[in-house]
């Protein structure tokens, strides 16, 4: 059975590489560095999608990390165990909700809220920044980043909670004995647990990079390299989901999308395996 798993895995890899080879041979490095994507004119530059993937994921981290840290501190340090016994499973249950439901919520609930209240407010008060310029539609990078951040919050906060929980009690007692406040003691603990906390962030990031369905409905699906949060965008995952069914008739188009899939595969595998292995070897625990 293990042999089956190994064989399956090798077949995957060979299939992905061999099918993307055609596009790599034909278009060369344009697939990675070209900034124009126009299947009609047979120009396949994947940079906007790589940019979109990284931009949404980084934005999602910026939103999710402070929230997760707050949740982790509250549930490991502040709240009584009678509450956290309910709170922790409830937050972990968020991770089990299918991504298509997040996507639907983002389209029909979050989108209108952003369009009517939040985006007009941001653009009228902070509109001088390039971040908050552009058409107000409620869809685009901001919406996608918010949904992604909600989706990765449970995993980040539970890993952070575990990391903080593993810090020896003496650290806290020492700080308190030296006359520190409780907050200062918690800060010490966070400092000690920082590698584990970083591990949570990395894992959250890798989840965000590969996510498709939650953002497919709300990102706008228009390749663009821009800082504007209101602008439509596209990620590797969304362009594959959108164009692959039609691309099947055109071998070059399909192959270009497959090579984007290969890039996505390489990005997420690299983050997951190499970086997490590094953190794990540093702190010596399973995360």
């Amino acid at each position, binding site marked *: *059975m*293990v042999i*089956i*798993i*190994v064989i*399956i895995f090798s*077949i*995957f890899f060979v*299939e*992905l590489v061999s099918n993307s080879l055609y596009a790599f041979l034909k278009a060369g490095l344009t697939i990675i560095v070209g900034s124009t994507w126009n299947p009609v004119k047979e120009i396949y530059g994947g940079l906007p999608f790589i940019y979109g993937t990284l931009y949404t994921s980084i934005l999602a981290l910026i939103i999710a990390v*402070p*929230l*997760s*840290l*707050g*949740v982790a*501190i*509250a549930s490991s340090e*502040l*709240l009584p165990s009678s509450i956290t016994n309910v709170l922790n*499973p*409830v*937050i972990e*249950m*968020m991770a*089990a*909700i*299918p*991504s*298509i*439901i997040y996507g*639907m*919520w983002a389209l*029909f*609930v979050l989108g209108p809220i952003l369009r009517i209240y939040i985006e007009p407010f941001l653009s009228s008060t902070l509109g001088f920044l390039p971040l908050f310029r552009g058409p107000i539609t409620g869809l685009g990078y901001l919406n996608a980043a918010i949904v992604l951040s*909600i989706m990765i*919050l449970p995993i980040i906060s539970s890993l952070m909670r575990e990391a903080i929980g593993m810090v020896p009690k003496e650290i806290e007692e020492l700080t308190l004995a030296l006359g520190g*406040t*409780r*907050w*200062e003691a918690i800060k010490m603990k966070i400092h000690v647990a920082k590698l584990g906390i970083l591990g949570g962030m990395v894992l959250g990031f890798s989840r965000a*990079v*590969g996510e*498709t*369905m939650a953002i*497919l*409905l709300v990102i706008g699906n228009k390749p663009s390299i821009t800082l504007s949060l209101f602008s439509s965008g596209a990620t590797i*995952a969304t362009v*594959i*989901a959108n164009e*692959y069914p039609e691309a099947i008739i055109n071998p070059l188009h399909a192959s270009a*999308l*497959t090579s984007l*899939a290969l890039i*996505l*595969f390489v990005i*997420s*595998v690299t983050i*997951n*395996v190499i970086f997490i292995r590094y953190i794990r070897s540093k702190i010596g625990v399973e995360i």
Partner: protein
Amino acid sequence: MSIKTRMIKERVYFFLSYVSVGITLFILGSIIFYTFINGFRSWNLDFFLLPESSPLDPRQGIAHAIQGSVIVSFTAAALATPISILAAIYLSEYASDKIRGYISNILEIMASIPSIVVGIITYLLFVEPLRTFSAFAGSMALTIMMIPYMTRVCEDTFLSIGKEYREAGLALGLHKWKVSTYIVLRMGMRGIITGFALAFGRIFGETAPLLFTALGSRTFFTGFLNPVSSITLLIYEYSKSPFETWINIAWGAAALLMIIILFINILIRFVVGKRI
């Protein structure tokens, strides 16, 4: 810094911490609330018994999608479960540490493949050669998603069983395979069931791997080599559509999916009482 400002700082940070819990719960509540409020409105007998019809027809439902989801997911589970359990037995009972290390890496990599990439791989492997989108390809995609996750959970369970039990079995003169099946497998049953349920819940809610494998369909299941719909594919298609009727049905389907997923998770957490 005087003690007063430090105390104020403490208050502020504690307050922010509670606020983040509040925000998180508020968002979760909002997702569940809107799904159920909008979803239950479209629930009626037709919704569960009829397949898709024209968007103008008030009498239609998601029966074809429920059927498709059940067929595709159960087929995947039936394929993935024995592979995962046997692989886990091999890894925990027979493999040397070195091999176990290698295989764990491969499983970890497999688990980290984004679901949309699994979709493409399955397309290349099973749709292109057979020249048809099919329920079979959809099941294969979900099988691929399920194996690494379930193998890992089962392996963890088997490894957590004390060495003494195995030694006791061997001391009684049992063969190694009997120790594996009669002792390890039996003792790990709870873990296997938990792993199965969690993995099943996960693949039941997957959409991306089905997009270009099962494809979606407007009718009931017509055979493993034909396209088939699923609850998740239906939610995606209908949410994109401009028709009010279909959007309402999508909410109804989302509510059903949510109930199934929450039910599985709550059952695992509070009845089996084991956290994985």
